[in-house]
């Protein structure tokens, strides 16, 4: 689909004269309705997060209160959580893993996407299909074999094992291929004529122009790695070598969830990402708009 695609011819039929005032009135009514719906939706999106924070501030014997603000707000749950699990270290681990995975996936995807977009070669469609199909392989299928492989490499209970299987992302390859294909061919040809190697073409011509795509992908990869749960759960042996999602899970047990600390840990796990988003909200949304995601 191109932005300038010719619209379906039908729209001309819809033209009919209408009184301006009537239209304006209706538009106003629709505006109120629209804002109402969107405000309600925004509320639904934010309230659970607010509730998480508020619950984390309730003391143990007031945890079931439903007042909008705790009757006796306290930081006891935070103190307890910080004592019970190494929060700072777990957050640090999570950050390292998420940054590494983001950087590596972007790099490998960029290289692969460049290959797919730049050349036609034997088997290119098949390889592309195989890359895309990995998206459909449920992680449950590969988890145990991957676990055994990691164990044989002696990497259990290490951050390396959390990064290693995530060296490539099908989504990143597909999106970047699309983005590079959409790049004006004349520019690429001109660079080629100038004798630029494919390597230089990629880094000096393409990458500087893929800002939006790369930024939005980076955000997506970072978020999903930060939030990853099942693979770390299988690997984790000691809290010191685990990520924050495992820390959260430690407050859930068959003998009753420790809701206060659970919410405190959840809040601490979410704050870095929420803060990042708050500061860069406009850029995040903007990068998605320019990403060529479609």
């Amino acid at each position: 689909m191109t932005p300038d695609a010719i619209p379906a011819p039908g729209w001309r039929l819809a033209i009919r004269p209408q009184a301006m005032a009537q239209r304006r009135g209706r538009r106003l009514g629709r505006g109120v309705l629209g804002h109402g719906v969107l405000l309600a939706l925004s509320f639904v999106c934010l309230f659970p997060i607010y509730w998480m924070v508020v619950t984390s501030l309730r003391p143990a014997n007031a945890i079931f209160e439903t007042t909008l603000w705790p009757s006796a707000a306290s930081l006891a749950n935070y103190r307890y959580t910080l004592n019970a699990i190494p929060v700072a270290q777990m957050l640090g681990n999570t950050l390292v893993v998420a940054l590494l995975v983001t950087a590596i996936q972007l790099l490998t995807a960029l290289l692969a996407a460049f290959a797919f977009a730049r050349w036609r070669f034997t088997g290119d469609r098949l390889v592309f299909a195989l890359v895309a199909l990995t998206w459909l392989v449920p992680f449950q299928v590969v988890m145990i074999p991957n676990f055994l492989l990691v164990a044989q490499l002696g990497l259990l209970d290490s951050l390396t094992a959390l990064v290693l299987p995530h060296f490539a992302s099908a989504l990143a390859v597909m999106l970047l291929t699309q983005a590079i294909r959409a790049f004006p061919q004349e520019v690429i040809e001109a660079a080629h004529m100038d004798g630029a190697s494919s390597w230089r073409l990629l880094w000096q011509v393409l990458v500087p122009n893929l800002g939006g795509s790369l930024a939005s992908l980076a955000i997506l990869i970072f978020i999903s790695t930060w939030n990853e749960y099942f693979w770390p759960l299988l690997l984790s042996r000691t809290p010191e070598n685990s990520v924050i999602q495992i820390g959260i899970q430690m407050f859930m047990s068959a003998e009753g969830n420790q809701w206060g600390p659970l919410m405190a840990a959840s809040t601490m796990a979410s704050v870095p990402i929420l803060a990042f988003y708050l500061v860069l909200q406009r850029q995040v949304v903007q990068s998605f708009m320019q990403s060529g995601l479609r």
Partner: protein
Amino acid sequence: MAMQRRHLLAGLATAATGLLPPRPAIAAFAAAGIDHPVQINFYNYNLATAGLGADATRKLLREFMRANPNIKVNGVGVPVTGFTARVQADLAAHRQVDLIQLGFGDLDFAVHSLGAKALEDLIPAPELAANFAGIAPNGLKLGMLDGKTYGLAYTFSTPVLFYNADLFRAAGLNPDQPPLTWAEVKQAALTIKAKTGKGGLATGILGPSAFDWLFQGVVRSNGGETISRDRKTMKFAAPEAVEAVAMLRDLNDSGAMANLDVNAAMEAMAAGDMGMYLQTSAVQGFIVAGAKDKFDLRASTMPSFGAKKVRPNNSGSALILLATDPVLQRAAWELMKFLTSKRGYTIITSEIGYLPLRTDIVDDPQYLGEWVKTHPLVQPNLKQLAVLEPWDAMPGPNYRQIVKTMMDAVELAVTGKVDVAATLLAAQQTTQAMLPK
């Protein structure tokens, strides 16, 4: 990968020739002593949580290592859901697993699939007998299978009926005389519901994470059993069991029993919104935290069917030895001995909230004497220790599916509009086919 492929090939060769790979001989005793430093891996689910359970476990391990300088215990925290799978995955990855804390429902699987060792095979009889002295005989039975001891009860509990004495008073009931039979429980629940508008009764019998331990006790208390003693026939559709389930159905249909999932029920009780709650005493800490300064929380024994004897079984975990090396077996056994010693049970009972299998420490001021005086909630538990029976572990590799199928049928029979006997019978036939041939 290479290793794995070798296993695949080995497996194929085995399949082709029909030869079994050599299994380690089981007749050899564990080493008599330990003269050089060793390390054992203890897979423990309390360590995978944050809180009292983990703190007390670490304390126990520290004390043990101080007393046994040659043995270093590496506690591996594994979440309780998926515990067996993790142990299995680690065994498959050739990790050394020496001692595990495993739910009693998994006992058969531990013996037949994880290679659990019978203590009688490892430890000379006199030493074993000396260590077992002081443990109630029915306590020892909890971890036995086919006549041998595979598990020692570690963190375990009995089902107790928690009740909110304030709600009892508000409903005009006497909190000093809690209901003893199911009929009385139903009456009290309906009264509480009518007078206070709060919930009457919740139980931990049903729900996805409930397993079958509490259900087994209910059926047994009515003179039935879920599986025959020789563990070859499923029996949860026999008349006694049907009658027990029909009673639960009546509790549900009359509105006396609220249909809540395990966590919701626990939280309703802790929030003061529920009159009575039948559940393992292991959740006591959670409910006490909610009740503190809010309401008068008390506990009673599991309800009976009329004049029939209450026959509860335990919930919780056993210590199971998997080590294959004689020296490590000795080290793991030493740790087992310590964890189930008077000192071990004192910490487990007073700091995590489970029960002592050595009942003589209850009145001993050196151990639990003082603690018991200030913790009346433990009384119904202690009373039930004397009549405790084993939680039957379903046999064979499909044991989890058996439990799931049975409990799904029970849940449908209790909460649905279906015929109780027919539903249970159909599920009984399905599960019968899942038993090992």
